[in-house]
């Protein structure tokens, strides 16, 4: 049997969409025993897709399948008394409880932090909410779009824009959720280690807005020196960055003088690049616009992957703007075994994105595909919580499970 780095850690996750489930996945793929609790209708991410053939099927949503690997899944109606009782049993069993409902959701069910501590004094309760559990916006709603803008990241994108009337924009996908999930997992992990010495539980209050601001912290603090706010339209023509090739975009980072010298040599030092003045960073910063159209013309004649390797091989920081297809075919990832094959009984077999950490002794692993809705009900109720099979059947008939 698979024994990962987090062998012996018990997690109950009652969370929707991305932030809480991704946090749970990070634990589960390291071998923690993660029980995912879903309401009878299932985690809403089951209904979000993308789906194969674009046909809705709660067992085939890519968003659900990716974020819920290696977990056991049960359904439970905690709005019913017996459901809530069963849920409390789970909370007594677990080390960590991951929740990303609005702050008052469990409070209204009598599961505020004080009650949770009485239930399980060593419990590590991870609460992920849009704006946190305290403060004037504690009960305000927020999700991917509002939070990326509330946290300041959205206002800076598109980065290197040229027109202020072109609106700020969010990241693609569910970046608020994923980043929040990582911050939550890291904190919970530290508390698991702390508990080994102190025996103490804690509540972690993760505000997704704060997670987003954290990404910008060094830039935000830079206001100390320039007393200015930031802007997605740069104050002077940028020297480098995103460029268009004949078949896509590339990010060119010839930032240091020796990088730019290498680039001039690669381009072949045409007249407009002949002067050694271009190897001076300050000169470039103030004059780049003079040659930018020519640089862009040159780049538009190159092929993305081809010029990427040519530039990288002379020691200049560079990278292609990869599509999903490019990422799946990326040789570097294949050589490193980044993708992992997961065979799901309904959705089928696909390679999934793996983990950025290659561990020599305790490798992460997808120990089972994402659970079908209620797949482990009987196993968890009878073997983990000690219900008799008669009791289990009765709860099932009463539609608690």
């Amino acid at each position, binding site marked *: 049997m698979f024994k990962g780095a987090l062998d012996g850690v018990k997690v109950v996750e009652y969370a929707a969409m991305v932030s809480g489930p991704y946090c749970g996945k990070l634990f589960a793929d390291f071998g923690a025993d993660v029980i995912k609790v879903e309401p009878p209708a299932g985690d809403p991410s089951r209904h979000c897709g993308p789906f194969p053939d674009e046909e809705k099927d709660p067992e085939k949503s890519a968003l659900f399948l990716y974020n819920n690997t290696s977990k056991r899944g049960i359904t439970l109606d905690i709005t019913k008394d017996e459901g809530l009782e069963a849920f409390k049993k789970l909370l007594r069993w677990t080390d960590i409880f991951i929740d990303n409902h609005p702050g008052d959701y469990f409070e209204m069910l009598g599961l505020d932090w004080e009650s949770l501590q009485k239930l399980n004094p060593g419990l590590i309760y991870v609460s992920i909410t849009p704006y946190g559990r305290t403060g004037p916006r504690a009960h305000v709603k927020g999700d991917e779009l509002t939070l990326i803008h509330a946290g300041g990241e*959205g206002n800076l994108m598109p980065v290197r824009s040229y027109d202020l009337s072109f609106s700020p924009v969010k990241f693609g996908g569910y970046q608020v959720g994923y980043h929040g999930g990582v911050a939550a997992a890291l904190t919970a992990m530290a508390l698991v280690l702390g508990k080994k010495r102190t025996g103490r539980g804690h509540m972690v209050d993760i505000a997704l807005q704060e997670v987003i601001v954290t990404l910008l912290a060094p830039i935000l603090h830079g206001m100390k020196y320039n007393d200015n706010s930031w802007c997605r339209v740069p104050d002077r023509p940028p020297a480098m960055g995103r460029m268009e090739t004949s078949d896509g975009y590339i990010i060119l980072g010839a930032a240091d003088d020796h990088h730019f010298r290498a680039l001039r040599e690669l381009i072949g030092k045409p007249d407009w690049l002949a002067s050694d003045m271009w190897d001076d960073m300050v000169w470039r910063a103030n004059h780049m616009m003079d040659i930018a159209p020519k640089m862009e013309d040159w780049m538009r004649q190159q092929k993305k992957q081809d010029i990427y390797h040519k530039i990288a091989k002379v020691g200049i920081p560079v990278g292609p703007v990869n599509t999903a297809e490019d990422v799946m075919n990326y040789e*570097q990832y294949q050589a490193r075994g980044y993708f992992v094959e997961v065979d799901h009984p309904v959705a089928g077999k696909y390679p999934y994105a793996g983990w950025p950490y290659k561990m020599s002794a305790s490798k992460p692993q997808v120990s089972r595909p994402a659970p079908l809705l209620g797949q482990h009900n009987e196993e968890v109720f009878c073997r983990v919580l000690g219900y008799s099979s008669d009791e289990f059947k009765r709860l099932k008939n009463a539609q608690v499970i």
Partner: protein
Amino acid sequence: MSQTLPLEGIRVLEFCWVWAGPYATMVLANLGAEVIKVEGHRRTDLMRRSVIWPRYEPVPTMLPPNQGIAFNTLNRDKKCVTLDLSNPEGIALAKKLAAVSDIVIDNMRPDAMIKMGMGYEDLRKIKEDIIVISSSGRGHTGPETNYLGFATIHQSIGGLTYLSGHPDDHPTHGTGGDADILNAMTTAFAALAAIHHRINTGEGQFIDYGQCEGCTSVIGEQLLGYLMTSKIPERMGNRHPEYAPYNLYQCWGVDRWLALEVHTDEEFAALVQVMEKPELAKDPRFVDMVSRKKNENELDAIIGEWTRQRDRDWMVGELCKAGVAAAPSRDGKDIYADRHLQAREFFAKIDHPELGELRMVRPPWKISDLELPSGHAPLLGEHNQYVLQGILGLSDEEMADLRKKDIIM
């Protein structure tokens, strides 16, 4: 408050610079680990001296070594020892420190630590259960291991950039370092998992962290969606595949924008109530989510006309009160001015010996009954005495000798 921080007793030795490494160990320090940063006093972390973009004329681009803002943001609560690592004696001292550390971490080029004789294979001979983490752009293996990059490049290779931006325009990466912060937090998580494994089994290990991969793991569903449908996922601007209205709307004033998300019919009814256009909730074009999504352009035009004439913050207040998810697209000044963040003590007061009082964001977590530290980033060589004499037991004469040889400052 008498308290034990969760990571007390764990010692981390770092050979990190810029963003992705330093923030990983800073969060460990915030949670109680003792983090010792090793720098050459003639070869410091680049961020010690640099001003963050935008660079204004009156601001010198090179600062004294304790005053770079990014450095002070990403290295708080750590200790700093200076050692000249181009000198074998400097390396020998670094190895002695590794022998009394739990985790050794670097974010230099993949071969840098190995060349200095401090790769995992070397260090495990000194301390069998050591955990060594090396965080690099492409990772330690594969054909591109020696390629160079930084955060925006990793985000682009990883696939996130292509998905971000307006649909009819160019893709956009995020700001200069946000991929580094993501990778730093993920690295710290992996480090702690390795500590857990060591408690369980007594075993240390090597962690080869790839920062491009870190950016791909956060678009897992997009890749799977591509494989399921054979369609390459494209940019959607601020919009959502199913919800409407779900967009950014221009408000009165210069570059002021309102972000608005509607997830249910009830929220839509609340929105049009605030707009004083309750009839829209019954309009067949907008009566349910499917219709709203179908007629999204018309709906966005109606909302945009309303927002263009009104104050952003007034609308945010009214909409949030009515139960609608709304937020301003905040710039830096808006962030500092946010009373909610202030009420949550998100801006820690940091007393810095050279810069005075700084207001810097704390890490994004609050933990019940724990007061997390908010110390300043270490001055260059601030802890030489503590580290070399306190931990390694060097005598005053040995210290003087090291200083004479320019191995320490």
